[in-house]
């Protein structure tokens, strides 16, 4: 479904992503784990089309894509952002936010599509005419997911979709994403610094450090054996809580 070969991204003299290659099969949930500045978000922005400055090759559904994307691409690939407070227009109601993609692509049945999108993310019609400031963080993130899905994409890119949320809300959003993936037959790429979240939701993952993928494995392999790369091991240990030895290294 998605195939990335020898991807390089530079900002000035700084190489944010260097020689990254991976493939994601249709229906996969692929996780990218790493700490801030490791290039995982940059990689996602390249895939989504937000960052046009890259070299290498990207294929989506068998079609090579360049830095500039057409409308058909955006109907196929959508993205959910990290910060639920920053990803919704503060002056637009939920209704307006969801109507925008429909208007851009000239789709019919706007009313029914909006109602269905809200139902799908568990919000219902009560929330339709609220402004973002009348919603909680979890509700905003649901709206953002509804906005991404209203164009019925086959690929959903998730940039730390739950890291700004409380644990209990995170569980709800993770459940929602898992359910939507099955119902809509989506291919997901999840970027997160939280190994536990990635391990929970994904079936394959790649660990990134300094702009490169240091290790790629299935979640089953992660569960059954220690990861081979020392950095992956460190991330795994840190995800379990404070560890005296980890700090002294």
């Amino acid at each position, binding site marked *: 479904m998605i195939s990335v070969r020898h991807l390089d991204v530079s900002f000035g003299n700084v190489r944010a992503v260097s020689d990254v290659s991976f493939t994601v099969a249709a229906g996969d949930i692929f996780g990218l784990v790493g700490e801030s500045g490791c290039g995982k978000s940059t990689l996602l922005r390249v895939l*989504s*089309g*937000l960052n046009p400055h890259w070299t290498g090759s990207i294929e989506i559904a068998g079609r090579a894509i360049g830095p500039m*994307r*057409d*409308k058909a*691409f*955006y*109907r196929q690939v*959508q*993205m959910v*952002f*990290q*910060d639920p407070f*920053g*990803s*919704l*227009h*503060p*002056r637009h*109601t939920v*209704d*307006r936010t969801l109507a*925008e*993609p429909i208007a*851009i*692509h000239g789709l019919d049945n706007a009313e029914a599509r909006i109602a269905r999108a809200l139902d799908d993310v568990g919000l219902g019609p*009560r*929330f339709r*005419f*609220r*402004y973002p*400031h*009348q919603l909680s963080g979890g509700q905003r993130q649901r709206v*953002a997911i509804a*906005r991404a899905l209203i*164009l019925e994409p086959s690929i959903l890119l998730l940039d730390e979709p739950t890291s700004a949320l409380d644990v209990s809300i995170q569980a709800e959003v993770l459940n929602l994403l898992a359910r939507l993936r099955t119902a809509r037959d989506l291919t997901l790429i999840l970027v997160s610094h939280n190994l536990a979240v990635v391990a929970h939701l994904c079936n394959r993952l790649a660990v990134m450090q300094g702009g490169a993928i240091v290790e790629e494995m299935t979640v089953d392999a992660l569960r059954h054996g220690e990861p081979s790369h020392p950095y992956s091991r460190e991330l795994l240990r840190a995800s379990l809580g404070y560890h005296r030895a980890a700090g002294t290294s």
Partner: protein
Amino acid sequence: MSRAAILRAWLVADTPTSRRQARLGRLYLQWLSFRGNWLAVAGLAVSLVLIIVAIAAPLLATHDPAAQNLDIRLRPPDAAHWFGTDELGRDIYSRIVYGTRITLGMVVAVVILVAPFGLVVGCAAGYIGGWFDRIVMRFTDIFMAFPRLILALAFVAALGPGIENGVIAIALTAWPAYARLSRAETLAIRNSDFIAAVRLQGASTGRLIFGHVAPLCLSSVIARVTLDMSGIILTAAGLGFLGLGATPPSPEWGAMISTGRRFILEQWWVATMPGIAIFVASLGFNLLGDGLRDVLDPKQT
């Protein structure tokens, strides 16, 4: 429940059921926060009174503003002439009432010329960036480098005195401020996720600027325009005072002060009454602008 209470509950409802209710509810909450600032409410009252006076000038005036009567020249305020008469025996009250039309007319003309232009130019420059941004910003630098009144003087001196030329001169120096303001706002929001999200839906640049960026800049431009109105009133009056704005015999406040200045010691009311009018009008818009800025600040929810 009384009708007012029902209406209020409908406006502040947590779950609006229609677009209109959502929008009106938002306006109502803004009004509530505006109402809490009594200075702003006073400013709003003054501005509304000015607008009403301008519209209803023929009804409110007690005399013909241009009618001369040399027998009663320079009379102090009394029952017949509330603000006294000037050196040609014209009723100062009626002249000030009609002068409201000229002043507000100039203000409205400048704002209509300047605000939309500055907003669009600034948003486009900020959003598109690159060489377009650089060129536009250097243009604003050029126009901002001119002192407003001096440029207006030069302009009027070249094209001849008159309200229209005064308006054009003020407009030429006023637009860069709006362009810069909208550009700064745009720069702050262009990299936000909600703009990125709309880009990822395939929205065109025009749609982004007009549908998503400009509306967010609009509120600060409105607040700034209202604040600027007092400055425009003062510049217009200044041009009138120097004999470069409205030409006699039109009852422009600045021109009235200018003629009244010869009698300022013996017949104080001739210059003082239009002076008070200028003061009240510019203060009113200033207070209103301050209040609007607080209410419309996009950084608040």
